[in-house]
């Protein structure tokens, strides 16, 4: 052993929330990058990045900072732009040494296959899966459940129920989130990416109740999204929310929270993270 690196000290930081038999298993921190025409949108604020609009450069920066995975959401995925996306995915795979998920406009085996061949580790599907649940089953059979992330945009309504929304939150459905998530997992979804529209953008904390309900109910990992604004919010989502992973965008892009600071804080709070 010529050089010691990446010492984690598992003994100092017992894994919480997973019970016996997974002591070294880490909670994941996932920055999300919104992409349009091959460039990141929503803006970023980094002095140490030459070209803040380049998703590969930003993604590589996060990977170096200790992000556990990355999510790239192509918000204007159209047929004409698909080549741009596949080329981008190929560049991400080439330069970034951690896993990444690609979402946006995936509605067929062929769409997913192109992304997989170019190096994506997972695809995220949302509205297309709701309209055609068989898509989940087809993707899971073809590529394995670990490749299929079902994204759900959800809102708590006045009747006290969480409903599924489609098309980036523009269309309400009558489906309850718990029912749809359970159906999707039965069909082969390997992870659920749950975004609370009530919390998204507020920086007031994640939706702890619905996240923990899904985590208890389903045998697959839950990625919580929407509302993370402070480091204690991340502690809450891993403990009270029982999330397996937490996703955020602008707080990382605008350096309100740095990933190394967040992970140190989580470790101090006895949340098991990869440092």
């Amino acid at each position, binding site marked *: 052993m010529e*050089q010691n*690196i990446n010492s984690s000290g598992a003994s100092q930081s017992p894994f919480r929330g*997973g019970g016996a038999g997974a002591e070294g298993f*880490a909670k994941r921190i996932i920055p999300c990058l919104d992409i349009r025409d091959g460039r990141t949108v929503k803006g970023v604020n980094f002095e140490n990045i030459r070209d803040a609009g380049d998703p590969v450069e930003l993604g590589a920066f996060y990977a170096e900072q200790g992000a556990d995975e990355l999510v790239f959401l192509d918000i204007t995925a159209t047929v004409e732009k698909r080549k741009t996306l596949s080329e981008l995915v190929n560049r991400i795979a*080439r330069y970034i040494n951690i896993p990444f998920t690609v979402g946006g406009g995936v509605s067929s085996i062929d769409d997913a296959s192109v992304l997989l061949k170019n190096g994506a*580790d997972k695809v995220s599907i949302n509205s297309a899966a709701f309209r055609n649940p068989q898509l989940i089953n087809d993707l899971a059979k073809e590529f394995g459940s670990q490749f299929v992330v079902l994204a759900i945009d959800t809102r708590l309504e006045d009747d006290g129920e969480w409903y599924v929304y489609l098309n980036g939150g523009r269309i309400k459905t009558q489906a309850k989130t718990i029912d749809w998530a359970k159906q999707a997992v039965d069909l082969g979804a390997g992870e659920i990416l749950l975004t609370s529209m009530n919390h998204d953008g507020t920086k007031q904390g994640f939706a702890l109740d619905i996240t923990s309900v899904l985590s208890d109910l389903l*045998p697959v990992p839950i990625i919580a999204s929407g509302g993370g604004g402070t480091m204690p919010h991340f502690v809450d989502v891993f403990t009270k929310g029982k999330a397996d992973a937490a996703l955020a965008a602008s707080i990382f892009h605008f350096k309100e929270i740095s990933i190394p600071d967040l992970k140190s804080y989580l470790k101090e709070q006895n949340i098991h993270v990869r440092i």
Partner: protein
Amino acid sequence: MSIDSTIKENRGNIVIVKYNAGNIQSVLYALERIGVNAIVTDNHEEIMAADKVIFPGVGEASSAMNSLKENNLDAVIKELKQPVLGICVGMQLLCTFSEENNTPCLDILHQPVKLFRPEKYSKIKVPQIGWNTLYDLKSPLMEGLAENSYCYFVHSYFVPLNEYTIATTNYVQPYSAAFNKDNFYGVQFHTEKSSVVGERILKNFIEL
């Protein structure tokens, strides 16, 4: 995380076995990042003549075995004398038998591949998707890595601990994160997605 995974001695030609494994492009790029040019081929002569062989894998065991058999690659791999690195399902296929669709495998390592069966109360989720620690590290393949280094795992089936285990991970129970028997090495995690730790393991393999 400071780790030097720059190749100092690139020993000869590196071949990646071409079959229906999903992660070949990612493995190729990971090698490129550490300065290694590999070729991807299913040609028997090219594989046999390689100095090092990488046997990747993502997907389901029986379809992977069928894909190997279609090109008689199963027989070729068993006869290899140079260092061979099986990754994820590639590691599992080096074993005797996989519980995944009851698939007979290459039987180079005489071990079964078993499904994670967590106790219900434990709330441990299957598949394991995420970063977990390696401990009880042995073998030059793990050189330069600290105990409890993290690697990225995605799997539902595992190889039990055995006399050839060179790294252990705990998920549901302790199991083989890596093994080495003769010239055959296997890693359950994805070296190509495990940040600098994975790149270091690839470098160690290339420099064996």
